[in-house]
């Protein structure tokens, strides 16, 4: 059971990473980037190519971060910049971007799952259960970025200012904030984050284009259950969903993890629509 909990936390860390990535653009540009998980996968593929080319691991990470940032900025330019306000346009354009990136990665790197060659790992025993070393790295990364960004958002002036801008674009523009640049910077930062996490996530999931959609959806549920806009919530949601999934697979049988997550998600929607740490926002008049 401890082993199950460790694997739940490891997979939960991936969901948390996705949720953190969503929050980065949500809290600055006011856009949820559904293609974020695709950029993570691109990061994983870049490190695969880096391995083939014989690049040192640290260079692979840097290249992955740069490629991730470039892809995200390209997405912002093409799919977000000219979006009409309202009408849920970002739903269609970022889902479209996700479809494009999935197809593009499948065309470039093929449809079969590839092993990410950062390091070889063997399960280690910890607190009476087994865990892959990379799981610990994932958990650590999620915690560092989640907690770090949480304090960045709530304690620093820039973080608070960008929260305010996301809440009211027009007001931000009137105060002379360059909203377009803010949006580009937000996407570049989230893309770099995605690229950087790509090899680490890929080490656990393997590099495969078609897993991105599953991660995107689970990441959204983590974001939502935790409370949209809160990085601390993203961590709680991510780890919670991961644990739930893993323990349900253990206790109820393989395959039931997803059912349980779905059921809990519906329950949260019905009982506590603002999420666990979220505050109720009235969107009305």
């Amino acid at each position, binding site marked *: 059971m401890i082993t199950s909990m460790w694997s739940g936390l490891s997979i939960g860390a991936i969901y948390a990473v996705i949720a953190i990535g969503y929050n980065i653009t949500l809290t600055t540009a006011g856009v949820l980037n559904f293609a974020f998980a695709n950029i993570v996968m691109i990061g994983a593929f870049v490190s695969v190519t880096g391995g083939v080319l014989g690049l040192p691991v640290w260079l692979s990470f840097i290249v992955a971060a740069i490629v991730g940032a470039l892809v995200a900025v390209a997405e912002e330019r093409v*799919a977000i910049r000219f979006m009409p306000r309202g009408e849920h*346009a970002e*739903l269609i354009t970022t889902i479209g971007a996700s479809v494009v990136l999935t197809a593009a990665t499948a065309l470039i790197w093929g449809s079969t799952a590839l092993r990410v060659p950062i390091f070889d790992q063997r399960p280690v025993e910890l607190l009476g259960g087994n865990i892959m070393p990379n799981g610990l790295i994932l958990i650590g990364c999620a915690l560092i970025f989640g907690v770090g960004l949480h304090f960045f958002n709530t304690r620093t002036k820039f973080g608070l200012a960008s929260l305010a801008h996301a809440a009211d674009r027009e007001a931000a523009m009137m105060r002379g904030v360059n909203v377009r640049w803010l949006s580009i910077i937000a996407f570049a930062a989230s893309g770099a984050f995605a690229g950087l996490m790509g090899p680490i996530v890929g080490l656990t999931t393997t590099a495969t284009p078609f897993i991105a959609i599953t991660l995107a959806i689970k990441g959204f549920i983590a974001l939502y259950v935790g409370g949209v806009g809160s990085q601390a919530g993203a961590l709680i949601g991510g780890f919670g969903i991961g644990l739930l999934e893993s323990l349900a697979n253990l206790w109820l049988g393989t395959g039931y993890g*997803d059912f349980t997550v779905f059921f809990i998600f*519906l329950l949260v*929607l019905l009982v506590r629509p603002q999420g666990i740490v979220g505050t109720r926002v009235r969107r009305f*008049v």
Partner: protein
Amino acid sequence: MTSAPASPLKGGVKYVRRPAWLLPLLWIVGIAIVVILPFVGVGAQAERQIVLTVIMVLLVSGLNLTFGWSGELNMGIPAMYAAGAFTAGWVAIHLVNDVLVSALVGAAAALIVGVITGVPGLRLGGWVLSIVSFFIVLLIPFILQVIPEEVLGGTIGLIGIPLPQIFGIPLTPDGYYVVVILIAALWFAVYRNIVKSRVGDALVTMQHGEALAPSLGISRYRLKLLAYAVGAIPAGIAGALYASLDLFLGLETFGITLAVNVLAASIVSGRRSIYAILIGAAFVQFITARSSDFGQFGQLAFGLLLIAGGILFGGGIVGVGRALLNRVAPNRTRRVVSVVPAEAIAAAPAYEFPALEGKRLEVDDVRRVFGGAVALDGASFVAEPGRITALIGPNGSGKTTMLNVINGFYKPTAGAVRLGGETISTLSSTRVARQGVARTFQTPFIPADLRMVEVVATANIMAEKVSLLSTILRLPRYWRVRRRELSAAYAILRLLGLEEFADQPAQSLALGTRRMTELARALASRPSLILLDEVASGLDTNEVVELAKVLRVVSQAGATVVLVEHNFALVRSLADHVVVLADGKVLTSGRTEEIEKHPDVLKRFLGEMSGLSGTSMTEPSRGRENKEEVR
């Protein structure tokens, strides 16, 4: 009236009437042409492609009901399709093998999936609905894994579906083709009759922000759930038809690729399209039929299409075509089918406003706090029926908050609002509207794509209900109600001098005209209490005079009129009673002549903050506040 339509189009418009039999005739002729294709030499391969296209048409119409008509994105079409297909397949194997039974069973199964995902997903809508519906598509393999293999074949898929029969008669491939076309044609008529009706108008109204529909007594959630659930039906039927086409159901058919394909088809057709669905479905089917040649390039193209569609063409191929035509021939005469009933135009022009049952409004010690900010701090006043009560005060004094508390958008933190002696401050805004409270907004809320007369008629949607069945079958009751409400709307427009705009898209009209449209809509609900939020701003002098005349008529008809107004000249000439708000409290209230001379009022508003003429209390920076308060 002086305001000219702000339509960017040149060229004339010709209003025409279309005979009622024309559309059904075209429909029957169209079906007949498609049905005879196999018998005039179209081969089996093409026949199959047509059937697959028809299935795609069904799926797109289901998606459009949510995506286009209620503004929510449903990615769960493959799950509804799968539910229909597997259930119908199982029933055909084990219980009854009949195409019609299959279609019904499939529709019912899909409906269940729709309700399960829609009830929680639509509470918040937006991303939440998309993700909930997306997730259930991802769950399909696991669901099949969990169900014993003997029942649905597990992850291998369902095999052994018998050749289709109808009433016990085995169907040849050609026979099945005909049956598929007929069933789809029947659904298509149902779809058309739902969206081109009061229900469609209500859906379009509901999409225009979160405040408008409740202020008309329309529940957004219920309407969205209705559209979403009804949208599951064609997906289920499509699944049932597909099950009997290939007699085998594989898992790969019901994946995310299908969701993307259907969405792409909907984007090409236009999200609120009807007939153009045929084009979008055929286009996507053409590409997917060659997907072995294109491989992932097909998905790449569809993904780009989604991005482009999300940004550029909400109107789909028809919208693009129309825009091109407008560029090529801007001066052409457009033929527009008039929606105003002929008898309404023929009716006597002297329209007598019907008596309204006004109710006394009591605002009793209302307090409303937002976080730490006190917007209303124990305000009380009374508005009597048959009188015009004006609410004045500087910016931030709580006028609009007061209106929002009265019509139920905000619950008061303390205190109560009573209408005709009954407490309404505990009711939802939807319920308050149904008690006979109508209102207008600072920025007029006029839904896109509706004609002016239709916008006005939306006020009647909740007052006179017509069942969905009557709407779909266009029973006499539907026509009776529809004609009556459109005639009444036209009569009100005539009263306001706006009848020449009745058939125009209301959103394209000038601000003053849109404001008057809102007023007309508020009047059309025959309100007991009518709340007007800065109804005169943006109107020119003639329009203000006209407006004052109308408001007199309305109050004399018996209604209680409450207006928030910055134009003091209008208040002076119109209001019987004035309530002055300052800092969330009632500074003073009384007859207009008294207020005018009240020393506090003079000092606080008319002296210091007034414009040069001394008649206006408007500050130049109003625009910003409007947007924030009413959105």
